[in-house]
């Protein structure tokens, strides 16, 4: 149907498996629909200028639609506006723009909800011990990007900790919080951050991690001092190695997102826009199209809906 139609996929980076899978999903769908897909990515997390340049390239290239996971949700808006003025359908994937209606539509996970689910699960899993838990949060990096804040604060909210300013990590005063450190979202950072926090307080027993690689690193640190079995590690993402780690008890629970779904939905929307000018519509009651998030754990708790790792494995990416 979409002959001669071209589309762009712009991700934050393409080193993170999450975005790699997103691209695979988009590529598969584009091939199916006969759309030419060009994909672009920032060099590092937070590399905003490359994304602007990519949008400009898409305009110059005459693309019909752009799928975008923005590194900087409000700074990208003028560039997005420029693209929309040029008649391009812009769909935000994974991360809503600020304001959210700057894009034609958003297909996203609710990252705050993702955090909240693991927070609630952790609290329920600890039961009465939750009142004197020792919590460490392993976040992304010092610039505190939006996902980082949403997942962290969602987790704390879910665990029942007063957030103070919900836009800032680290301003909470709850004594159960031992501290937070940054991981750059990889194993090495996860291990180092965990070691630092353990040196500060070796009795930590709940660990929130920004993603599963960081969780794997944290687990190594715990294992090296023999505490891998009495600390609860929770995470967000739902990549296949992550789910496998949940199955093996490395991670207690993780919130799974669906990047391939976001991407393929996005490509479909661009095809529809190219064909007859229809725009996709939002999920009822929300201002974006929620591609869903599910808590994956083999230890379900009351009051928090979850799926088990077998199902998680079927749905996992990467």
């Amino acid at each position, binding site marked *: 149907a979409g002959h001669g139609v071209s589309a762009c996929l712009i991700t934050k980076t393409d080193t993170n498996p999450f975005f790699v899978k997103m691209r695979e999903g988009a590529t598969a769908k584009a091939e199916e629909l006969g759309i030419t897909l060009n994909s672009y990515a920032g060099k590092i997390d937070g590399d*905003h200028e490359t994304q*602007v*340049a990519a949008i400009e390239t898409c305009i*110059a290239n005459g693309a019909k639609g752009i799928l975008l996971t923005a590194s*900087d949700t409000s700074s990208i808006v003028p560039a997005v506006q420029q693209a929309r003025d040029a008649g391009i359908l812009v769909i935000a994937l994974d991360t809503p723009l600020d304001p959210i209606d700057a894009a034609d539509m958003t297909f996203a996970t609710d990252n705050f909800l993702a955090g909240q689910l693991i927070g609630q699960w952790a609290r329920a899993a600890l039961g009465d011990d939750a009142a004197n838990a020792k919590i460490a949060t392993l976040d992304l990096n010092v610039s505190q990007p939006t996902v980082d804040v949403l997942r962290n604060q969602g987790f704390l909210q879910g665990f029942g900790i007063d957030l103070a300013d919900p836009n800032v990590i680290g301003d909470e005063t709850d004594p159960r919080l031992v501290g937070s450190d940054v991981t750059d979202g990889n194993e090495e950072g996860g291990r180092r951050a965990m070691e630092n926090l353990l040196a500060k307080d070796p009795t930590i027993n709940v660990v929130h991690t920004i993603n599963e690689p960081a969780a794997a690193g944290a687990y190594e640190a715990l294992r090296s001092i023999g505490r891998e079995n009495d600390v609860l590690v929770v995470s967000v993402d739902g990549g296949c190695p992550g789910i496998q780690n949940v199955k093996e008890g490395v991670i207690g629970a993780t919130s799974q997102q669906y990047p391939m779904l976001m991407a393929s939905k996005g490509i479909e929307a661009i095809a529809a826009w190219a064909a007859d000018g229809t725009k996709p519509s939002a999920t009822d009651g929300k201002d974006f199209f929620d591609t869903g998030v599910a808590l994956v754990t083999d230890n379900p708790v009351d009051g928090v809906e979850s799926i088990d790792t077998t199902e998680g494995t079927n749905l996992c990416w990467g």
Partner: protein
Amino acid sequence: MPSSDNYESVVGKASAEIASFAGRDKRLIDRFHHALHTTPALVPLIVLVTAIIIFGLALGTRFFSPFALTLILQQVQIVGIVAAAQSLVILTKGIDLSVGAIAVISSVVMGQFAFRYGLPPGFAVVCGLALGTAIGALNGWLVAQMKLPPFIVTLGMWQIVLAANFLYSQNETIRSQEIAEQAPLLQIMGAKFEVGGAVFTLGVVFMVLLVMVLAFVLKHTAWGRHVYAVGDDPEAAELAGVDVKRTLISVYALAGLICAFAGWALIGRIGSVSPTSGQLLNIESITAVVIGGISLFGGRGSILGTFFGALIVGVFTLGLRLAGADAQWTFLLIGVLIIAAVAVDQWIRKVAA
């Protein structure tokens, strides 16, 4: 046995003829050689033009249009401005790893002063520029007076400034729409004008003017010559009567000021004020400088070369993107092309030697 007739007196009779060897200047190739020697920036210019022609042939009007070509200018403007600052520092045998951080904190200060404290935008801009200059001057003081290595000083400053930036801004972005409404002056560097399909912004004009002014200053003022002398051999410069410390401090301070202007241009380019921008400016600016032919060991090269160096990277990047290369393939190919560009550069210098 040391003997002596009055041999030295003979020299009075020596002819005053000036050595003149067979003139080799007639042929075109010799003129070209000579031009390369007197204008080192010609080499990156040749690489640049070649790259434009090749991409133009491969991609046709998608690339070879006023719109796309001026798009490159817009895309390199921030790097270009910062690279001009970086050139100054590198010419003195230094390196400035804090350029990106200075640009960002300056833009954040401009934004926050205007919005958080409600100061007049013009004043906020001046504060941002002053802050950038001050940080640069502090770098310079540490390098010149305390004799610390520039790499370490600016690396430390980079961390300090970046962290201060996050702490001060509380990671808050000021949205484009608000700026457009309440303090459009902050975005003025993004103001566009079109000349027959070619789109220019004030930021681009600023970059070009800046490069031209700096080229003049470096070549035609005492200060400029001192910058080269300090980079060439600081001890010799000191002995020859250059105030090395003052020159260094002024270079770093000026670099800070230019970076602050880059921060202002950044607001124009992205519309909003975002504390997370500009993280790659360090490496990108140094790349432009080195591709442009300025030696990292100081004292050699020209700022025009840097400008062409920045454009070379911009051309490659846009060209490859337009050609539809994947992000990773683009990175890989740009890596290859950076090496190739410098190899060609070396080759031209060699055949021209």
